[in-house]
């Protein structure tokens, strides 16, 4: 890597800067980030109107409960079933967290290493793309055959679903080398590791965070899907259970929980992005 750098004098031109600052990244996510109190109020109002309207319309048209239960019934079910649901919530969160952590770590490290070797990167990238585009859910029955009905097959599926996402986005970030910044660090005697931690990682950070966000959402989808395919635990399993019993308020209570998890993930990474990844937005 150093030998490659040594003979490249960057042109420091405006054009290079333009190439480097890939827009996209988090800037596309941060639209509407500076919400005013009024806008927040309107968003809440809209939610109230939608929920209240649904309540009203469902009652008015006497929609049967097994098709669409009233929001108030869903809320009531969430409260009354909570003691039965929350162990499954924990299982789902556990599988997601472990699977995502494993997948994201491997994806991140692979991206960091591979982008240093253009040749290796060219060879590996199509396979990573294959992993990104193949729905990992399809592997779950196979994984269950091998690992049984415990958490392992689902954790593996989550890692396989989120890892490549993190990897492909991080790699895009790491590819944004700015030779002038690396030269700057080297001129102050930086080691290869220091260049990595002080220049390359912060430089790639906006894309790394996008990768983590997309990867974790993918992970959530895969966790729930895998739980629906097989296993006796988790929110996905509860979806199967409640729908087979035609207990629709409880079914929708679980859906509400899943939506909440998804939104929380988004908000969390959005905040992380604003804090650590928005320098180029």
């Amino acid at each position, binding site marked *: 890597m150093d030998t490659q750098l040594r003979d490249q004098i960057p042109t*420091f031109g405006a054009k290079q800067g333009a190439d480097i600052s890939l827009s996209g990244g988090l800037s596309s996510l941060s639209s509407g980030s500076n919400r005013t109190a009024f806008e927040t109020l309107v968003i809440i109002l809209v939610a109230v109107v939608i929920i209240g309207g649904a309540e009203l319309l469902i009652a008015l048209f006497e929609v049967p409960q097994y098709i669409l239960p009233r929001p108030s019934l869903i809320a009531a079910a969430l409260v009354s079933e909570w003691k039965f649901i929350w162990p499954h919530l924990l299982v789902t969160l556990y599988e997601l967290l472990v699977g995502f952590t494993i997948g994201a770590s491997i994806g991140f490290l692979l991206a960091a290493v591979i982008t240093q070797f253009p040749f290796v990167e060219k060879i590996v990238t199509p396979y990573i793309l294959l992993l990104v585009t193949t729905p990992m859910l399809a592997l779950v029955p196979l994984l269950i055959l091998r690992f049984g009905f415990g958490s392992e097959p689902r954790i593996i599926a989550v890692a396989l679903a989120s890892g490549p996402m993190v990897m492909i986005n991080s790699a895009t970030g790491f590819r944004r080398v700015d030779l002038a910044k690396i030269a700057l*660090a080297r*001129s102050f005697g930086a080691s290869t590791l220091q260049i990595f931690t002080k220049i390359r990682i912060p430089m790639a950070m906006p894309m790394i965070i996008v990768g983590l966000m997309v990867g974790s959402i993918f992970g959530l989808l895969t966790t729930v899907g895998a739980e629906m395919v097989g296993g006796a635990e988790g929110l996905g399993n509860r979806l199967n259970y409640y729908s087979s019993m035609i207990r629709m308020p409880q079914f929708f209570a679980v859906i509400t929980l899943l939506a909440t998890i998804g939104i929380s993930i988004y908000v969390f990474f959005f905040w992380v992005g604003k804090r650590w990844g928005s320098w180029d937005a």
Partner: protein
Amino acid sequence: MNASTDRESRNSTAGPKMTISGASKRYDTRSGTVHALDRVSLEVRDGEFLCILGPSGCGKSTLLWSMAGLHGLSSGEIRLGPSKIEAPHPEIAMIFQEANLLPWRNLESNIALPFELKRTKPDRARISRLLQRVGLAGFESKYPRELSGGMQQRASIVRGLAVDPSVLLMDEPFGALDAFTRDEMNLLIQEIWMETGKTIIFITHSIAEALFLADRIVVMSARPGRIQEIVEVDLPRPRPISVQSTPEFIARVNDIKDMIDHRKV
């Protein structure tokens, strides 16, 4: 501090600050070999303001990068005092074009970077004195994008000076600035040089800028990159910006221009 005595005592220690002997560098590219530097030999005096002047592509950056220890030569050698430059040296700081601040760090933490890399504590007193000097006191928490081009470049000068190097290498540092800001920066760098007695090697492709700043101008020519001429500039200091519109100054600009044009024919 008394600048003049500082510099006189330094000059009396004889011996060049940096010695470049027979420096050649070739780049092997797919389309062939580029002879960027061809047997360049030069002695940089201690405490002098040396400008390297030449058209784009004549090897100025290549030479400066070698002096900074950022890349090696194909042949020849560069020394700082007695020690051969083979890697970046703590006594040498480089100032880049377009400031080259890290956009994810605020000004204070940009200036702290060299200390972080050397795993030492930032010299707070020195840094705040320098910030004061260049008119950036109070801007420590600002991010680069919140600063004008001139302010960014002043910050990068502070970053370079903060580690107290004895040699400052500057690669067309003000090339991207507008004419007014550029004049301002030229005055500032002259003042800083007179106050600190650093050895400054300053690349430019502007004849007027070189004449305004330099004790000596090294005129380079391209393909292969060679030293064409070394011009002594004995204009009295401090030089005001207005010196650039005196007939004498303009005559010198034209002399150098002729020298470069002749070579082209």
